[in-house]
């Protein structure tokens, strides 16, 4: 990648990170909690939908229900 493109990309990245950090600093406890649970949910979904796995939609839904029930928020 030529220098100008790569420096633009890294500039974008650092601006993005900075904006993210600034944004997160002002988060409420509720937002932090929802963010953490959502990420865990996303990882669970990723594991449940790996292409070489054959987990039906109803089984995925059951796992999500179980996961959400265990979380107190």
């Amino acid at each position, binding site marked *: 990648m030529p220098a100008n493109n790569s420096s633009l990309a890294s500039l974008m990245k650092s601006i993005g990170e900075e904006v993210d950090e600034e944004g997160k600093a002002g988060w409420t406890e509720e937002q932090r909690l929802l963010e953490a649970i959502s990420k865990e949910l996303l990882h669970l*979904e990723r594991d449940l939908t790996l292409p*070489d796995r054959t987990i039906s939609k109803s089984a995925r839904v059951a796992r999500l229900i179980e996961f959400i029930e265990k979380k107190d928020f």
Partner: protein
Amino acid sequence: MKLISLELSDFRCFLGSHRIEFSHDPERRVTIFHGENGAGKTNLLNAIHWCFTGKFTPRFQDKQILVNKEASRQGRRECFVEIVLQDESERGSSSAIYRIRRSATNDRETGFEVFRVEKGNSTVVPAGQGLIHRFLPAGLVSWFFFDAEAIGSLELSGSEPFRQDLRKTLGFDLVDTLLADLEAVYTKRRQEVASQTNDKDLKEIQSRMDDIDRALPGLIEERDKHERKVSELSAELELVRAELAKKPKAEPLEKNRRSIEAEMAGFSREKLEYARRAAETVGRAAPATFLQTLVARLAGKLDEQEVRGRLPSPFSDQLVDDILKDHKCICGRDVNEGTEEEKRIRDLLKFASTGELNRRINAVRYLSKDVERFGREFPADIQSIRSKMASIDRSIGSREDRLKEITQELQGIDQDEIKKLEHRRIELEAARTSILMSLGAVKHQIENVEARKADLKVRYDLTVKRLAVNARLNKEMKKVQRLIAYITAAAKEQEKRALNVLSIELNSVLDRYLTKHYRAKIDPATYAVQLIDEDGKKVGHSTGEGQVLKFAFIATVVAMAAKKTQEKIEWLSVPTVAPLVLDAPFSALDPVYQGSVAKNLANQTTQLVLMISSAAWGESVEEALEPFVGKRYLIVSKEAGARGQKPIKTLHLKGRDYELNQYGAAHPESVFGEIA
């Protein structure tokens, strides 16, 4: 994922067994196949495409003849393609090697297997196609293995399948699936509430929503199927028309047809604008027409009251105030506090005219005049709009007649090939129109069903409020609702960021390679990509610059798909790192842009495989690609029979000439030859 090697056996024009290796060196990441038209470049692209997916690219012809004809004559009935690839994404290990093998006769596919290769031993991977989808999701294959000669038909206008494919490529499929699953969780909870409360109304509403949930996926699938079919037909239609335009006798007619079609598109847009104006005029004048009689009576009443001196009232509030303050009437009598006179004069304030009252009366007058004017002008306005629409219809009609004449003229040309192409064009046009109509109907149905579901949701929420819902269930419902709302908003934010990065990267490519200062704009709602000139006007996708935009877009999207690991966008699925395989990448491009596009492709990709003809191998392309080339092959076309007057085609490379075709072979076939 990187391609390591490819083995072909009796596949199409390749007789017997052929093995080639791809360059997978990160620096020298380009592998080039040089071959003339008909040598087998498209067969090679399709060998890779088919091995991964079991399908071919849209332009691939005679799909039913996969086994080499000479091999069939010699009694061999089966061909196969085998690809060895390296997966670098596996957790806990540096990389893994896999071998994919697909075989077929001319009648059917006979085998598909995926093996994991470790220390020289191969073990079968169960559910191999699933594993392949992990390397390269099915929806993304068309981006990575691309028949670039058909780039003209790549639609960047933002159809739903295009948007979905791009979302998948950027990695939003995981969060989309999660949200769909959470909606299913929410539905399950709603069903539990309906059953727990045992309320008749709630059960009825839920049951109707369940019916919709059962019907909607089918409708969406139908819509997507129609959209894909329209894209396929449009692509084929474009190719047929491009073929027609290549025939000298057909070229002027085809050119004329395109310009008439462009005019017709302009008229249609104009007509749409007038239809909008007509609707607006009718919308404004309808109540005016209805109110006209009432308003006329109101105006009459106002006039009558004015004549009688009651409107505005003959005395002002200021006059009454002055009498009360001075304790003296204008007739000279005393008006003392607490007297009957004072009370009667104070009562006059209720009817006295004030500035505010005057303003209000005037406002009513203006309004009634406006209503009258709208009512009076409406017939003339609507008549003028209708006559403009009729004139546009006549213009469209005359051009439709001209298009029919062109079709007749093309069919009348004494050349079978032109007749065949024109016939095919008519067939494709008719098929596309018919599917577009079905598509419109399905879209309308989906809109209705979704609106009905939204209504039912509101009714459900209202009904549930008056019921005693189990506290635990209530809490679980709310938890799911909050998660859906949070994830939807976060995904939207990530999407905005991803499209922003895509737009910046795409424009940085265009800045470097286009000679004009054009910008690309991505519509966040549809993902449609539009090229805009210096004056803010849209630039057609069929122009030279439009073609560059398409190449730049493909390369940028492929690079973005891989870059997600670096960007750490946590909401996205596993990144797709795969080679970009392009057949005939520069043939459709203006020579001015060939070098810059070549350089961009090499820069943006992790592995690049190109099939190029000698005609498209110019100095600028050579200069751009040479620093990246790791492997290079000739596809030599061997033809049966004597050479006679036929030419020998050559590739000039690094000061040497290489022959790309030979004559006098026992049977026609293509062979690979590696060159340094």
